[in-house]
């Protein structure tokens, strides 16, 4: 479908320079009424910079911006808001201790004749906008009590209340479950019908085919091209993004796993998010864990390493029952968990790459009682080379790396402490297509080196491409372990949703 609407936004020859990087180089972009325009590119390609310029968070160095055909200078977020541009970031800009209604009208409270806040009107109006995005919770509820999906809908309601004509979504589905994604897409379609223009950033190609109309690809800050989503082949898109071809059907399932080395029986945690988890992993195997967000996958694995309190169940490593009361107990026994949330639970962003890699294994780089810089350097450079971590040197801070490379640093840390069991929670979240393939290859390599690998993922295709077996969780329990022909999208969804026909 080619959209023929009026042009809402036109950006021409936009450039932006940061110290050391040319983030954007003469990029063009156009958004029409009633279209969903997808912005594609690897991490660091310049997508975020481009939308931040449009939403007033950054100022451009060069180029022109036209809104409704009029040339404008967007100097700050407030001005962007007034021009009808709203952005829904991954990290929401809501205030947790205010109510939903207060958040929607923050800074624009209605007042009564006496200059007091007109609460009745505020709640009424908030209700109206919340209804229009299908947000069912009370408008008087505190934002802190909302789920991620609900917060997102509230952000959309806020954008509608501002009467925004342009709505930017920054990876909106990264933290949503299947049902929630469906709902979001129906909202996006209705926004489209109302003639609004939508800029959509995502890494998931399936989603792009589902909701996108046109697609603009950036690579290394340069404009590569704009195509209609209908009729374009996935492989072509990937080639545009990565600059080379990527085979999406390639499998990464490790060959010939050995005996069972690690077992969990009837695990239950205090917060009841995990009620009965049993599974086993063989050496040389990748075990996948599927399930909806909130099914207890993360909590179960955190329980395994002692980061969540376990009240029942046993953990068996090499036929010996063990108890992990703290993550450092697990580490000593060779079990490592890598969080899905790299930034807040994985890396120490202010620390350099070298120190991030050796953090869990400092004992190995101690010489005569003192840390040996030489040994540390050796360890770091070994993993930087083996895992192909892209960085100028090992002294740069971890937060300067792209998502994929950050993930590799964490893998390096896990490997450096010679762990037997490696648990990866959403290892490819927020990582671009090409880097994902590299992570898959690393996982396989790890398994084939004899590690037992567990991989939690919300993306069924990647589970199918990497795992020997897939455990499916629902409401705190492992309800099935699938392998061979049973392991299919339909099979996984069937168990994950609880027998509902898909």
């Amino acid at each position, binding site marked *: 479908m080619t959209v023929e609407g009026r042009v809402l936004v036109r950006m021409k020859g936009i450039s932006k320079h940061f*110290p050391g990087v040319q983030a954007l180089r003469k990029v063009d972009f156009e958004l029409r009424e009633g279209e969903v325009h997808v912005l594609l590119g690897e991490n660091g390609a310049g997508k975020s910079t481009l939308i931040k310029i449009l939403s007033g968070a950054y100022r451009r160095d060069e180029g022109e911006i036209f809104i409704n055909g009029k040339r404008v200078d967007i100097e700050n977020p407030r001005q962007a808001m007034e021009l009808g541009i709203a952005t829904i970031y991954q990290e929401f800009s809501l205030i947790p201790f205010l109510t939903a209604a207060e958040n929607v009208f923050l800074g624009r409270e209605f007042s009564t004749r006496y200059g007091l806040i007109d609460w009745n009107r505020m709640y009424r109006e908030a209700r109206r906008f919340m209804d229009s995005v299908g947000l069912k919770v009370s408008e008087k509820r505190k934002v802190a009590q909302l789920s991620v999906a609900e917060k997102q809908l509230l952000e959309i309601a806020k954008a509608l209340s501002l009467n925004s004509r342009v709505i930017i979504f920054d990876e909106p589905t990264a933290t949503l479950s299947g049902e929630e994604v469906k709902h979001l897409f129906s909202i996006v379609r209705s926004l489209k019908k109302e003639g609004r223009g939508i800029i959509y950033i995502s890494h998931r190609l399936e989603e792009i085919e589902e909701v996108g109309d046109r697609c603009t690809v950036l690579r290394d800050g340069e404009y590569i091209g704009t195509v209609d989503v209908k009729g374009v082949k996935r492989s072509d898109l990937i080639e545009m993004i990565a600059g080379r071809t990527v085979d999406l059907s390639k499998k990464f399932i490790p060959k010939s796993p050995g005996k069972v080395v690690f077992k969990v029986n009837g695990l239950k945690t205090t917060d009841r998010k995990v009620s009965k988890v049993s599974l086993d992993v063989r050496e040389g195997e990748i075990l996948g864990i599927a399930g909806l967000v909130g099914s207890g996958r993360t909590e179960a694995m955190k329980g395994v*390493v002692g*980061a969540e309190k376990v009240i029942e169940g046993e953990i068996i490593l090499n036929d010996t029952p063990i108890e992990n009361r*703290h*993550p*450092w107990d*697990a*580490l*000593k026994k060779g079990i*490592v*968990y890598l*969080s899905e949330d790299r930034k*807040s*639970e*994985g*890396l*120490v*962003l*202010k*620390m350099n790459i070298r*120190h991030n890699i050796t*953090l*869990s294994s*400092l*004992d190995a780089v*101690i010489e005569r009682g*003192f*840390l040996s810089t030489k040994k540390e350097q050796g360890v770091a450079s070994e993993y930087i080379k083996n895992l192909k971590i892209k960085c100028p040197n090992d002294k740069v801070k971890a937060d300067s790396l792209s998502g994929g490379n950050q993930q590799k640093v964490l893998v390096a*840390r896990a490997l450096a*402490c010679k762990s037997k069991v490696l648990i990866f929670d959403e290892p490819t979240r927020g990582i671009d297509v090409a880097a994902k393939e590299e992570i898959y290859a690393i996982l396989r390599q790890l398994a084939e080196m004899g590690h037992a690998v567990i991989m939690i993922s919300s993306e069924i295709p990647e589970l199918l491409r990497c795992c020997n077996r897939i455990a499916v969780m629902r409401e705190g329990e492992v309800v099935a372990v699938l392998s061979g022909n049973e392991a299919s999208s339909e099979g996984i969804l069937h168990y994950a949703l609880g027998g509902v026909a898909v």
Partner: protein
Amino acid sequence: MNRIVNVVKSYGIYFALLTLVVVFSFASEWFFTVDNLMDILVQSSLIAIAAVGQTFVILTGGIDLSVGSVVAFSSICTGMMLVSGIPIPLVIILGSLIGTLYGLVNGVLISYGKIPAFIVTLGAMSIARGGALALNSGRPISGFPPGFEKIASYSVGGIPVFVFYTLIVYVIGLIVMYKLKAGRYLFAIGGNKQATRLAGINVRRYETFAYVVAGLLSGLVGVLLTARLNYATPLSGEGYELDTIAAAVIGGTSLSGGEGGLIGTLVGALLLGTLKDGLTLLNVVSYYQEIIIGSVIIGAVFYERAKKSGE
């Protein structure tokens, strides 16, 4: 020109200290003399030593407001022990241990009890000060054995012994910070506590460690201060908590934790000492001294911020 700007930028605090020394040298003929420079070193040394502990604590993302009061508490205990005839070497050890105990309690309450550092050390500040007053009913103590003041007044080849104490504490501090696991973990905890925990590090133990070091050094400073004055008063050490925080912050340690270092803290302490000495030499009225010192602290933090956003 650009290169000069860059040099100034990356060595900002050293440059500031240098500028100060040059300005004061021109303003007062007495400033740039060996004797006066030694005075500055000695006057800065106690703050500098206590600031090592403060830096450790701030690196973990915490803060220790009890430094000054613990100095006073340790000082009064030192005085009482000396008067009661306990041998001097034992007094030095016990005085430091008393501070260590305070640090241990602080650390345990903060890391195991999960009470914010600000609250715990604010409480400890009040408790230690009250304790210092109560122990000897608010009276100062004097009349120590003659050997005691030697540990402060001694000098080696014209260099006051306090300079050596400071150097020793800093050398050990630097080794702990950069050559031992504990030091690395301080940075990690301050940078991201949750990630450090999941990386398999006993976060609580090392967080406590930082407060223990702070307590130990406060205790030691209490002993040294008593020797320097040959007099113990329950009111001593007032303002030490803020001076040590200022030294650390001027030296580039981030109050949010995870970034900074000891060399900066030492230079920060020297900067404060130089400023106080120079302004006194010039007989600047005390009101203006306070204004100038306050401005320097804010300026230093502002400069760090600017440097970071420029990166």
